[in-house]
Structure formats: C-alpha cells, structure tokens
C-alpha cells in the first residue's frame, strides 16, 4: 500500500513538476521586508514548514506540501528569499519565504539525505541514498544539470553522506559503503570533474567543512577516527586524525547518528561528537590532534558553537534526548544543563548568538533560550519539529 501510494505520488509529482514553471510571479500581498531574521522550522511528520522571524520571535505562516520530511534539511539562496528543502523522499522543494509558498518541487531520487548550495549560489546539489549519488540542479529552475552516480566496486552504488560546498564551485561528499571521499568541481555545471580519494576509512557517516572552506572532515562510524582532506592541498591526500580515540573500548549502542554539519569551531579548537561515547572531543585545528575531552550527559548528536565561540551547545541521542548541555570553551566545563522538552532534535543560534532556538519533537514546541542567562524567552508551538534553519546560513560556507 505504501509502495502504491509512493509511486502514484511520484507520477503526480513528475506531472506537477513539468507543469510548474511557476515563474517568479509576484505576490502582491507580501509585506516589504528583509529576510535576514527569517527562518524555517521543519514539521517533519506533517510535511510542512513553519516560517518564523527571530526579532519578535513569532510565527509568520506555514508552507505545506513538502512530502516526507524525516531528516529534512534546508539551504538558502544568497539573497535569503528562497529555501531549498531536501526531503527524505527525494523531494527537492524551492520555497519562497516572502510569498510563503512552494515555488517549485521535483522528486529527484527515491531516498535522499541532504544537500548544499554552490559558492556562486547558482547550483543546488543533492546527496542521495537511493540511487546512491549526487545530482546537481539549477537553483533558478531546478533543472537537472549533472548526475554523479556514486559507483564503486563492480558497479555498486554507495549511499552519499556529508555533502558540503567548497570554494571554487566544488562539492565534497563521502560514500558510506565504499569508504571514499569525492571532490566534484562544477565550474562547468554540465561537465563535473570528479577527484576520488579511496580507502579513507570504514563507513564515513557524515562530514563537515571548516568555515573557511579549507578542511573537509568526515566522521567514521566503522572505526574510531576521522578522515581529513585539506582542499588547499588535495595532492597530499586524505589523512586520518584522532585515530583510535576510543582506544579500543567497546562503543555504547548508538541510537542516533551524530551530525557533523553545523559543527563547532571556537578559536583554534573544534568540538566534535564522539561516536558511542558520552564525550565531546576537543581538537586543535592547527595540528588536528586531540586537545581534550569533555564528559557530557549522553551521546552527543549536535555539537554547535555560539557564533562568538564562547559556548558550545550539545544535544543527545536516546535515552538522554530531553537534555541540552552548555560547555564554556574557556574552562571546558559544562556550565548549564537544560531540559527543553522531550526528544530534542536540533538547535539553531540567532545570527549573532544572543538566543538559541531548540526543537522538542515530542512536546510539539520550539523553545527559545537566552544564551547568557539560560532563561527561556519564548515558546513556539510546532507540530513534531525537527530541524531549525535561519537564513543567516545563506552567507556561510558549509551551510
């Protein structure tokens, strides 16, 4: 039954996509305003987005019809007007924040995990599980420009994870089953040039790129350690960092994969989730060696720095997913433990970090905290909220 619904939906969507060159028709009712304080909250079960603004902390409206939004993520056009939403069902949807509507939508794969926008803002790349690979679309029209199948041994296709944009209109991504990192140069969008790095480690599960766009760091699920690629010097290849950080100890069961994107860099130190351990790892990015470990309340999922780098906020996998902890980056001490609600899935800082928005899926709300006093400032009702994405991401490499 599920299958039949899906295939019917696919056909409908294909038809809709073909009929939909909606043009950027005007929406006369839209208020004249900037978009710098806007954001979207994913209502994962309802297939809907909540449009919010962070100045008055209010809900401006909802945008419906986005399909299966489990594990959805969003990137923004550089003018902050459009969000590109990557849905689990392979849906790529362009939404207009000012007109508050779906501008265009295509089903581009069977199963998708995320995406990125190019340095020049013209290309949207989507990372897919089924069929494994990366597809690149025009940000303006969502026309397919390039298809990069993640083929490895004997024509098998790997799930693609950890897709990040890099300077030079490049996209960098990892192949889960293959243990490879690929760098795709889309200077000519219809003729991608792909450089492959093989044998980088077992089961890369996610990755990040440093805010300067220089280093690509993939976390490994199948072994203790991370794979590092210096994009200024790809000729040096991928090297292993933090090798054996678990020192051979048995991992705890991992009930939710950590996320590396939106990672924490504060000064010269990076803060990373340890897989299967109740620890945040501190890494010196000048040497890429371990500089410390911080014991935390559970297995970290997101480890995110306040924009000024003074604090790092951490949420956790089951069964500690009602908790958020705050680490002071000067003392490396946990300075606050908060209980925002049941099933905390994501957190997002306002552009300059005076507040943080935290989603509590099972309490159907987003809680806004003051990051200086840790006092709750507001509660935003939301239906099973997961990811929170503010338009400030439009101007940041790797987001």
């Amino acid at each position, binding site marked *: *039954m*599920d*299958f039949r619904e*899906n295939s019917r939906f696919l056909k409908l969507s294909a038809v809709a996509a073909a009929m939909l060159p909606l043009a950027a028709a005007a929406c006369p009712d839209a208020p004249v305003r900037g978009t710098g304080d806007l954001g979207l909250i994913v209502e*994962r*079960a309802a297939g809907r987005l909540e449009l919010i603004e962070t100045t008055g902390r209010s809900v401006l409206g909802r945008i419906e019809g986005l399909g*299966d*939004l*489990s*594990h959805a993520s969003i990137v923004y056009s550089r003018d902050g007007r459009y969000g590109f939403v990557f849905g*689990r*069902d392979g849906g790529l949807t362009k939404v207009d924040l000012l007109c508050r509507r779906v501008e265009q939508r295509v089903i581009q794969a*069977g*199963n998708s*995990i995320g995406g990125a926008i190019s340095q020049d803002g013209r290309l949207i790349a989507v990372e897919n*599980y*089924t069929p494994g690979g990366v597809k690149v679309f025009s940000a303006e029209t969502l026309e397919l420009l390039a298809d990069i199948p993640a083929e490895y041994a004997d024509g098998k296709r790997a*799930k693609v*994870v950890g897709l990040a944009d890099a300077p030079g209109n490049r996209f960098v991504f990892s192949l*889960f089953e293959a243990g490879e990192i690929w760098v795709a140069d889309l200077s000519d969008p219809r003729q991608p040039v792909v450089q492959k790095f093989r044998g980088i480690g077992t*089961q890369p*599960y996610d990755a990040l790129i440093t805010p300067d766009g220089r280093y690509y760091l993939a976390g490994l*699920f*199948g072994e203790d350690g991370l794979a590092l690629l210096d994009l200024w010097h790809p000729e040096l290849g991928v090297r292993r960092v933090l090798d054996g950080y678990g020192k051979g100890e048995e991992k705890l*069961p*991992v*009930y*939710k*994969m950590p996320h590396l994107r939106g990672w924490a860099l504060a000064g010269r130190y990076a803060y990373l989730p340890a897989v299967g351990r109740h620890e945040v790892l501190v890494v010196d990015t000048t040497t890429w060696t371990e500089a410390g470990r911080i014991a935390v309340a559970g297995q970290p999922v997101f480890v995110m720095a306040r924009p000024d780098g003074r604090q790092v906020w951490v949420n956790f996998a*089951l*069964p500690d997913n009602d908790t958020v902890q705050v680490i002071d980056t000067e003392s490396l001490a946990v300075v606050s433990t908060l209980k925002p609600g049941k*099933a905390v899935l994501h957190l997002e800082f306002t552009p300059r970090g005076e507040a943080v928005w935290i989603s509590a*899926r*099972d309490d159907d709300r987003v809680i806004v905290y003051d990051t200086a006093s840790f006092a709750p400032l507001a509660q935003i009702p939301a239906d*099973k909220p997961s990811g929170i994405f503010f338009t400030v991401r439009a101007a940041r490499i790797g987001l």
Partner: protein
Amino acid sequence: MVFSTSRGFAPALFAAAMGLAGPAYTANGGDKLPASSRQSELVHMVRHDCGSCHGLTLAGGLGPALLPDALAGKPIEYVERVILDGRPGTAMPPWRGMVSDEEARWIAQQLQNGFPREQ
C-alpha cells in the same frame, strides 16, 4: 509495560513457527500484547526514532526499508532478534533495554503486516 524477559522467549519461538507456517499469521496469535497505551508509544518510537535511520515511512534511509515487501521471507524471529540485539558491524544498535522481548516481537509482527500510522 511490565514484561519479564524470561517469559517471552518460548512463546516467541512458537509465534515464529506459526509465522513461518502460513502467511495468515496475525498479531493476536495467543501472545501477550503490549497494553494499548504502550502500543502507541511503540508506534511513535518506531516511526520517529527508528525512523531517523529507516525513514518516517520506513521506506529506508541509512538503514534498510522495513516495509512488508522488504521483510517478506524473513522469519519473524529474525526480525525480533535484530531489534533486540542489533546487527554487529552495522549501524543497527541493540534495542534491548528500550523494549522488552514481547514488545520487540509485537513490533516485528506489525512491521511484517504493515506498520500502523500514528494516531
């Protein structure tokens, strides 16, 4: 909610045998079922927490699809064991401690029959 693990296994084998014997196997084949409030908790857990890897619609993600077609031919006992013990060498963790034996069996049955949607 209170299910002792020792009571669970023999009926599980029996249920598995029943399940293998014919396609008409149903959830209430004499097994002890989770209370209905716990059933909704389990549905929520599978849809959302299992769904973080297997997808909200269970059509698959980092983990494989858990739809009836995908599980066809797999003994119910195997599905139950994977839930309880995970699959070493993969990202599938053991859920023992989060769910009892009976609950794992109930989840396995529901998956094979087409998993319920949340109310």
